[in-house]
């Protein structure tokens, strides 16, 4: 390096470039992480393929894959937006990554936008993969694709808010444990693999208001039963999104 190399020439890159480069880095970090891939890719795929092919659980009337495919899509959204994001962001906070980025030209809202973009990219890959597996297993989806997209986006917002709330308030290890526990509980009891009708009435009413049940039942209404737009499920997801994102914005600690 020659004399004059370090002569100051400060300035932020254009905001669009900052967000895209950040989203690219976040996506590469997610794809490079083996545990995350297990959670986001392998588990939903296995749930879909195994329980569709083998008669282990009673999924009610109709083809098993028609019941399971919407559940697997909901599970994929929860894995990426909630569990993956909570754990990833929790450790970024622990390792000072968030702190370092907070001193960079990238504004905080830009970092959040990049994280959202990266979550959406991963979920797009998941949807493509799960759709391919389901179609190979004889899935016959119905309904309005726009309603499906809207539900997936509302689910992403709801789970992201809750995931970031957890990441920004708990210690990284606590987040790791709690996010995995919640994932397993909601996978079993959230209408993903087991129909909610199998649960006692009182429990079922509570479960219906969880974001995972709203998302999997909402997707099922459209994809399995051909409903145009399940407003009830959309409303539950929207409410979780507002509460979760507002609480995350209020309580998130960057260090």
């Amino acid at each position, binding site marked *: 390096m020659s004399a004059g190399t370090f002569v100051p020439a400060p300035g932020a890159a254009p905001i669009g470039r900052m967000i895209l480069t950040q989203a690219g*880095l976040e996506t590469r970090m997610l794809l490079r992480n083996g545990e995350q891939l297990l959670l986001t890719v392998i588990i939903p795929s296995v749930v879909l393929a195994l329980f569709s092919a083998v008669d282990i659980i009673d999924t009610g009337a109709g083809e098993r894959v028609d019941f399971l495919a919407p559940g697997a899509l909901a599970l994929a959204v929860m894995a990426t937006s909630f569990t993956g994001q909570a754990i990833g962001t929790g450790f970024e906070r622990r*390792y000072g990554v968030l702190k*370092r980025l907070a001193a960079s030209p990238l*504004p905080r809202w830009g970092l959040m936008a990049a994280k959202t973009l990266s979550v959406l990219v991963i979920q797009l890959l998941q949807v493509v993969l799960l759709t391919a597996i389901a179609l190979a297993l004889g899935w016959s989806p119905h309904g309005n694709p726009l309603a499906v997209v809207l539900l997936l986006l509302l689910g992403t917002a709801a789970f992201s808010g809750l995931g970031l709330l957890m990441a920004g308030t708990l210690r990284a290890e606590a987040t790791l444990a709690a996010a995995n526990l919640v994932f397993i509980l909601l996978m079993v009891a959230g209408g993903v693999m087991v129909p909610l009708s199998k649960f006692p009435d009182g429990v079922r009413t509570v479960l219906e208001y969880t974001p995972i049940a709203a998302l999997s039942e909402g997707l099922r209404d459209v994809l399995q039963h051909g409903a145009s737009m399940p407003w009830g499920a959309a409303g539950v997801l929207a409410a979780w999104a507002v509460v979760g994102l507002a609480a995350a914005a209020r309580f998130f600690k960057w260090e």
Partner: protein
Amino acid sequence: MQQHPPAVEVAGLVKRYGTKTAVDGLALSAAHGAVTAVLGPNGAGKSTTIEICEGYRPADAGTVRVLGLDPAADGAALRPRIGVMLQSGGVYPSARAEEMLRHMARLHAHPLDVGELIERLGLDSCGRTPYRRLSGGQQQRLALAMAVVGRPELVFLDEPTAGLDPQARRATWELIRELRTDGVSVLLTTHHMDEAEQLADEVAIIDAGRLVVRGTPEELCRGGAENTMRFSGRPGLDLASLLKALPPETAAIELTPGAYRVAGTIDPELLATVTTWCAQNGVLPEQMTVERRTLEDVFLELTGKELRS
């Protein structure tokens, strides 16, 4: 030459955590285009002060101006103009060294050439290594590279050479000197007094959240306490006869058999008196050294010798 306002100007700064006062009316300034070193025992308030300047936390009282801006209110305008090196961390564990540096470069409008910077800091052999597998020294150098890659006007370096081997330390010093030559203002904290003596145009010693003293390293070392000279010779010399020849206020002791120390105002005259006395006693003084007061001596005098938690 154009007159620049200070890069950092802090007055009456107060920061409390609960009932503990971390910074207690601190005054600090860092001149434009200079290297300013902040020294202080652990818990003196160095990191808190720097983090307030970086915009990480608000002050409870006092004024803070960084490049003329208030970091709490004008963070968005300030951040592109500063470079920050944290004491540790700051990188995704699975990010590769070069990948992370390229990423930081892309967040800036006119970054340095990443390849050259990597080579310059000796990171070329580990450019593809994930951060978590870098050695401590490599992690430090990457953090330094991340602080300068955006061509900032001012860099904050929190203990930039902690844990570095002597070669890497020298390379870091060289880079800091070059930053200064090119007109970048540097505010650093360190526990290495020799680092402050080597690099700093101005040193500020803080303790218990207050400024204790500031000045150039020369100014701080010149004033106050005495200097010492040491020599070795035959054990058991009659120091009483030496003391008679020396000015009052001078002390001479035999530290260990054959190792002597004279403390006082060591000037050429005194040196001549000692060597003459040695000649009269048939002693060849070996390993004769005159020790200037070091910054470390000043530091310990001002902040005490007891351990800090």
